[in-house]
């Protein structure tokens, strides 16, 4: 699953940084018919977890009400340098992950 992550490469200690995530995914609602009139089964990214140095920073539990190609933005305080990891999973069990390193000066 293709995703784009935006984390500043560098921040001052104590600075508030913005984290943005965009994932290419149809977020199938389960209500759409295909060309033969059959329902396309629901398939959404139901869980996304963001960790910093192994500890959970942010978690999203999502349903079919989240738009296709989900986008998320939130704010984190930069206390120390380290690695953010992003892990998500959809209804078919397909998983995706990304990582980004933050340097604190």
């Amino acid at each position, binding site marked *: 699953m293709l995703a784009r992550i935006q984390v500043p490469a560098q921040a001052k200690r104590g600075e508030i940084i913005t984290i*943005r995530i965009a994932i290419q995914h149809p977020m199938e609602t389960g209500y759409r018919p295909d060309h033969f009139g059959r329902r396309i089964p629901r398939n959404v990214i139901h869980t996304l977890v963001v960790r910093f140095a192994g500890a959970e920073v942010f978690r999203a539990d999502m349903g079919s009400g989240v738009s296709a190609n989900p986008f998320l933005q939130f704010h984190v305080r930069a206390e120390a340098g380290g690695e953010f990891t992003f892990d998500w999973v959809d209804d078919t069990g397909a998983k995706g992950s990304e990582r980004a390193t933050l340097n604190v000066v």
Partner: protein
Amino acid sequence: MRALCMLLLWPLLLAAQTPAPRSGLEFASADVRALQADDFANPGMLWVARGEKLWNTPAGRSATSCAGCHREAPVSMKGVAARYPRFDREAGAVLNLEARIKRCRESRQQAEALPHESEDLLALTAYVAHQSRGQSLVPAKDVASVAARERGREQYFRRQGQMNLACMHCHDRLAGRKLLSDTISEGHGNGYPAYRLEWQALGSLQRRLRACFTGVRAEAPAFGAPELIELELYLVQRAGPLRVETPAVRR
């Protein structure tokens, strides 16, 4: 004297009567414009990112990537999309950008054909077209394109379908007016492949054109059909100096 003045000013008056073409972006809401302006939030950029990966991935029996021949896309592909559709000597036909990429994929990379509207073809097309963002469209000047464009122009002004409407009826005469809550645009293709909120995905100009055929209750030509290429050719000329916006966001 007055008559002479009028005569001298006539070309100026004519020029004033043909307003500059306006991109679909100008007819979009502030929310859609904001989404297109933000290169991270713009969901079309996901396809551009996917296209960049594909560009650098070897494929087919040649085991060559696009980059293997064309090197850095930001250099080699700059301005290319703005010149399509155009005549391709090897193919012996006028090709749009998608068709050109498909051809390269099949004949050079010797890879499996990319179907029309497939995620990979859209991604590669979006990535290549994105390298021309900000460049003005350039209508093809070769003989075959000029002839094909004339057929496209004729089609643009021809009534079609059960609603008996030509493209011109909405996109020339009624641009800027409302159709339910939609604002009718001038129908320029300079943002394609574009991310449409309606589609919840990126799609080609041909997909959009085919939807217009269905809209006037006419039979939509198949993807890649000459009628669609001809229409695309005319649309480029009609859009004049508008700049490539790929990946645009539309409602």
